[in-house]
């Protein structure tokens, strides 16, 4: 509030010099102010990564000391993390969960989103409301009976199947997002396909899917990240079997096992963060598109 009152009209009137010089000076001061704040913000966002990285290459002794810069660069910490029993299993499980989960979600969300975007039918509004409601519900609300089914009837707890199988039946968030995207495809394309004798299924596969590629890429990425980051699911369904843990879940036990060795924990943290960041740099455009899509009103 104080800064706004200061930068109001009077300050400008008192500055000496020609109007052009004044304008240049104001612009320069503005540039400096904006970039100072931006650098400060960048430090806030980036320094945590820097400290985590620096600690991840410290020796055991130094990691306990509170010093910030490593005396020697102990890269073997990363090797030590990889040779931790189970770590490679967790990698494989995370990739399986994220890969299959994404595939299943995309395949099941496409027809549903298409139907909700394209057809007008009785109950469509209700269906949309139900999709949005499930999207908003805390997963803990319905987890207990689901767990009992997987554990007592299907005997599949301790594996990643209880995490992956539900994704073949449409994830509400993906359906919602993709539907919003499909609404932006002009109906004329679909009509002309119909005139050309395309059935609905062919229209969907030949016309809609290629046109909706950015939207599909966005939901695929979101789902990949969701699975990779998921903690609650693996905690419920895989806790009793360490060989079925995912990276996100296993990471926590890392700290417990190496309770004093922050360096190894930080190396493991780096290894869990890196894949998502690499994926992001390869798919930046689709990702940003997806984030803004959530805010788009159809």
């Amino acid at each position, binding site marked *: 509030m104080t800064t*706004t009152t200061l930068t*109001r*009209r009077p300050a400008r009137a008192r500055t000496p010099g020609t109007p052009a010089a004044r304008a240049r000076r104001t612009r320069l001061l503005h*540039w400096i102010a*904006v970039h100072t704040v*931006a650098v400060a*913000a*960048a430090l806030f*966002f980036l320094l945590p*990564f820097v400290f*985590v990285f620096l600690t991840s290459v410290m020796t055991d002794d130094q990691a*306990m000391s*509170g010093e*910030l810069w490593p005396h020697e660069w102990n890269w073997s910490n990363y090797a030590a993390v990889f040779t931790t029993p189970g770590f490679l299993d967790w990698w494989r499980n995370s990739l399986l969960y994220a890969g299959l989960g994404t595939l299943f979600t995309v395949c099941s969300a496409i*027809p*549903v989103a298409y*139907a909700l975007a394209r057809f007008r039918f*009785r109950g469509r509004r209700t269906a949309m409301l139900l*999709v*949005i*409601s499930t999207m*908003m*519900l*805390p*997963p*803990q*609300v*319905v*987890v*207990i*009976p*689901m767990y009992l*089914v997987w554990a007592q009837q299907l005997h599949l707890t301790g594996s990643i199947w209880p995490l992956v199988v539900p994704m073949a*039946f*449409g994830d509400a968030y993906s359906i919602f997002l993709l539907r919003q995207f499909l609404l932006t495809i002009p109906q004329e394309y679909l009509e002309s396909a119909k005139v050309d004798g395309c059935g609905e299924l062919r229209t969907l596969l030949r016309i809609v899917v290629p046109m909706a590629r950015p939207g599909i890429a966005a939901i695929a990425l979101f789902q990949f990240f969701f699975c990779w*980051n998921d*903690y*609650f699911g693996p*905690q419920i369904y895989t806790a*009793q079997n360490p060989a079925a843990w995912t990276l*996100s*879940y296993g*990471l*926590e*036990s890392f*700290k*417990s*096992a190496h309770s004093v060795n*922050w360096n190894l924990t*930080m190396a493991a943290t780096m290894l*869990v*963060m890196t894949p*998502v*960041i690499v994926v*992001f740099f390869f798919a930046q455009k689709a990702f940003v598109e997806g*984030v803004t899509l*959530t*805010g788009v*009103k*159809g």
Partner: protein
Amino acid sequence: MAAPSSPAPALRRKHLRERLRILGFLSPWLVGFSVFFGYPLIATGYFSFMHYNQIEQPAFVGLRNWKYVLTQMPLFGPALWNTLWLVVVMVALRVVFGLGIGLLVTKVKSGAGFFRTAFYLPYLAPPVAATVAFVFLLNPATGPVNEILGALGIPGPEWFNDPSWAKPSLVLLSLWGIGDLMVIFMAALLDVPKEQYEAAELDGAGAWGRFRYVTWPSITPIVLFAVVTGVVQTMQYYTQALVAGKLASGVSIGPGSVIQPGYPDHSTLTVPQLIYSLGFQNFNTGAACALSLVLFAIAMTVTTLLMRKRAGLLPAED
């Protein structure tokens, strides 16, 4: 769509085919909704009236679980308070901070690409990894943050180990991952027509005036959207609070082991954590299901209220 009043048989057949086709397209979701949502919701209701420890047969106990959860369970109050605290404080600060960073990013002229990526990056860090990193950064003994504060002569707080600092530390963690809101706000801010700023400037509006009368009116729908999604997400707040509490407690524990949730002093215990603790650590399935339904009711109420406010979630033409 209104059905025609007297359809010819051929037309009716066509109608039926159309119906079946729509059902076919919707079928993955219809199955998923009934099996993974409808059934467990009904079953949760059933178990909430049962005594069930997952070994013996469920036994009907009437309202006893409900009475226990709502009036006798000592942790219900703190959990509800913490969840509401986080919903109010975390969402408010995230929206304000996200808007600020969004504004900043639209104003930066040099190195815009670098700053945008730098501000966005933390949002990508997996929650568990980000939480582990923050518990390390903020650990009172040797954490870099307190080391630096100490070097500046400021005594650092105990962060995740102090009941009154634990929730603010979680808020700090959530502000670090502001990238999602930054992108949404950035897009909204770039959509504000340039001419309106010029017109306002001609009318003698200062920086605040331009924000108040030009920027704000055109971004209010997005702000509302950010608040709604923020409230919904924060009511589910689970992973970060749980992991931070477990790690900061320093007890050597593996996942799945039984500890008092919400370290320190239940200050990070949220309602979803309490459900987990009741159902999967105490095996009090009945009480856990009753509490699930309480959370369900709160979430539904809030959602309905927010949706009625035209939060932009349901497109206008629906």
